[in-house]
């Protein structure tokens, strides 16, 4: 009961409410602007979390996360361009609906389905996370090491055709994390005589450079894609009778989104595609799919917002981020003194409950913002890209410098931004770098503590049953692309 009261107390703090509303509002705008997306929104907000306090920071990040995922649907509906990859499936029926003169209803369905999808997924998060955390409580250093290794390979294995590049990216992230002081002996590592490097690489400049600056560089170097005219937008609530009539597709899509969200590395884009395909298969209106059918729009939107809470299940209960967004969230929570993982549910029950409540609230705020902001959407999409990118660049400098007032942080932003751009240019996924960087210290510490426990015998790690199971899963995940290739070869080899 005390935990519940404490969580409520955190939620009703004015700073938390303002941050939640502000985060959702900004998230919707960033999500609506094609190409910017959730990762940029959250990485840009990281520096602010230093001054906002724990509750407001968490509320801000959750608002940004939910808002930006939903925001992608706006440009998908209005200009036939998904604002975020998560809204790729929304285009298929959202834009035809708008073209048919039902733009207000399309935005109404997108907002309603997103909010309901997010709410259903949050309830599942609240039920599933503590159960998973119960298992995690049996973990010692060896199990934590196995878990960290598993988390790392999950991301690498979804790099699919870029398997080697994914591994290299993960290793680069792990290496950057070792720069600075050794957590066990206190020795300085890889500082090359630099005082600034002896403190290690800060998470904020590293991630802001890697994602925000590299995104700016990437967007200016890409050939500009011409979009069609932007139609005037408004909001039309579909009505409770309509919602009841389409309840099956809403609930089913939300469940698909939540389930896919819990799988590390799969993400909201895949969730909305799976959900869209399932709705097309089972809907009585399947013939209208692709021509402006609300079921198609609902399936895509309920699923991609369901992922937001689904992805938080492994992040909060085991400390495993499922995608780059939750990886940055994980880093932001660590910055706030909150270490996601099984102990979080024991040591900071009020914070966990606050996160659930804030996520729940974020979906109501998302609905309100979506409804109120709808007439302004068409104007937001008219912001010229050169001006937008220049403003982002200034915000990168201002935000990062404000954290420590350390000019060296801006050097790190520049270097990691250039590195991020160059890696992206040759198809290196950036997500494993973040995962490696965020999980690196935990992996190293648990590995070395485990070695102390087993008197330096690495092979003795397999004597721990949970760790052994995780090692086997890790190996299987690493071998999956190989199995898939072999299967394809035996199946189609004779053709």
């Amino acid at each position, binding site marked *: 009961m005390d935990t519940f009261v404490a969580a409520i107390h955190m939620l009703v703090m004015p700073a938390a409410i303002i941050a939640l509303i502000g985060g959702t509002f900004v998230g919707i705008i960033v999500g609506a602007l094609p190409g910017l997306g959730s990762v940029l929104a959250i990485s840009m907000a990281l520096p*602010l979390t230093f*001054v*906002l306090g724990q509750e407001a920071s968490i509320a801000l990040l959750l608002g940004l996360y939910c808002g930006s995922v939903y925001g992608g649907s706006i440009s998908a509906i209005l200009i036939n361009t998904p604002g975020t990859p998560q809204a790729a499936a929304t285009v298929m029926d959202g834009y035809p609906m708008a073209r048919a003169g039902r733009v207000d209803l399309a935005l109404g369905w997108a907002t309603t389905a997103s909010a309901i999808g997010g709410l259903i997924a949050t309830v599942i998060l609240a039920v599933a996370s503590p159960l998973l955390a119960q298992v995690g409580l049996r973990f010692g250093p060896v199990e934590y090491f196995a878990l960290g290794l598993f988390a790392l390979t999950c991301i690498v294995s979804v790099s699919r055709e870029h398997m*080697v590049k994914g*591994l*290299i990216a993960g*290793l*680069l992230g*792990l*290496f950057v994390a*070792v720069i600075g002081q*050794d957590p*066990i*002996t206190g*020795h300085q*590592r*890889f500082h*090359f005589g630099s005082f600034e490097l002896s403190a290690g690489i800060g998470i904020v400049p590293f991630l802001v450079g890697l994602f925000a*600056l590299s995104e*700016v*560089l990437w967007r*200016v*170097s*890409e*050939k500009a894609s011409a979009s069609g005219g932007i139609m005037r937008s408004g909001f039309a609530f579909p009505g409770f009778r309509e919602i009841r009539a389409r309840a099956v597709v809403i609930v089913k899509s939300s469940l698909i989104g939540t389930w896919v969200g819990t799988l590390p590395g799969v993400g909201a884009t895949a969730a909305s595609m799976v959900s869209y395909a399932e709705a097309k298969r089972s809907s009585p209106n399947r013939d209208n799919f692709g021509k402006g059918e609300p079921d198609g729009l609902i399936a895509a939107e309920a699923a991609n917002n369901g992922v937001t809470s689904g992805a938080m299940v492994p992040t909060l209960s085991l400390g495993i981020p499922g995608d780059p967004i939750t990886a940055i969230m994980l880093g932001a929570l660590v910055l706030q003194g909150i270490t996601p993982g099984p102990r979080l549910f024991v040591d900071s029950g009020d914070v966990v409950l606050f996160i659930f409540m804030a996520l729940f609230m974020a979906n109501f705020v998302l609905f309100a913002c979506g409804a109120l902001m709808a007439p302004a959407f068409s104007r937001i999409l008219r912001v*010229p*890209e*050169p*001006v937008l*990118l*220049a*403003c982002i*660049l*200034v*915000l*990168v*400098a*201002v935000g990062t*410098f*404000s954290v420590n*007032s350390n*000019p060296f942080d*801006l*050097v790190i*932003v*520049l270097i990691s*931004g*250039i590195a991020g*751009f160059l890696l*992206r*240019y*040759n*198809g*290196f996924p950036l997500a494993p770098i973040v995962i490696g960087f965020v999980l690196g210290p935990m992996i*190293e510490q648990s590995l*070395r*503590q485990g*070695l*102390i426990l087993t008197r*330096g015998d690495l092979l003795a790690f397999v004597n721990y049953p949970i760790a052994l199971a995780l090692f086997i899963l890790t190996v299987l995940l690493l071998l999956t692309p190989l199995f898939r290739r072999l299967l394809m070869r035996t199946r189609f080899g004779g053709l």
Partner: protein
Amino acid sequence: MKVRLLDILYGTVIFGVAAFLYWYAVDTGISARRVASDPMWYPKVILVLLGLCSAILVVRGLFIRINTSASGRLEWRPMAVTLLVSGGALLLYERFGFLLVSLLVIPLLSWLLGFRRPIVLALITAGFTVVVWVGFRFGLGIRLPAGTLFALGG
């Protein structure tokens, strides 16, 4: 540029960096009898794996034919311009201060990237600068740097 050429180039560079860092780790002379208390053991493991993976990338580039181009066509001129402006803004931010950087970078970069409406640009630059300054100063209680070169803003 073809992906296989880039793979060879990237793999070679990463291998070289990993080899140098490994040598540096050995050269520091920090080590311990027990692996768990050796601060350089874990980084060395990462560097060996990094070297191995980058070698695989090079070998794959040399012997497996991948003829696709990297990431479509990119426009290098605006990228170079943005990089120059970004570098200048980030490296001189403390010295020039927020006001000067914001008032210079937004119009300069927007203009260089092709936005040619001076009045709109001036209004956006002024509006954005004021909103950010007020937001940080009064909303978050952070004093933005005035710059050591000129005593502006703050």
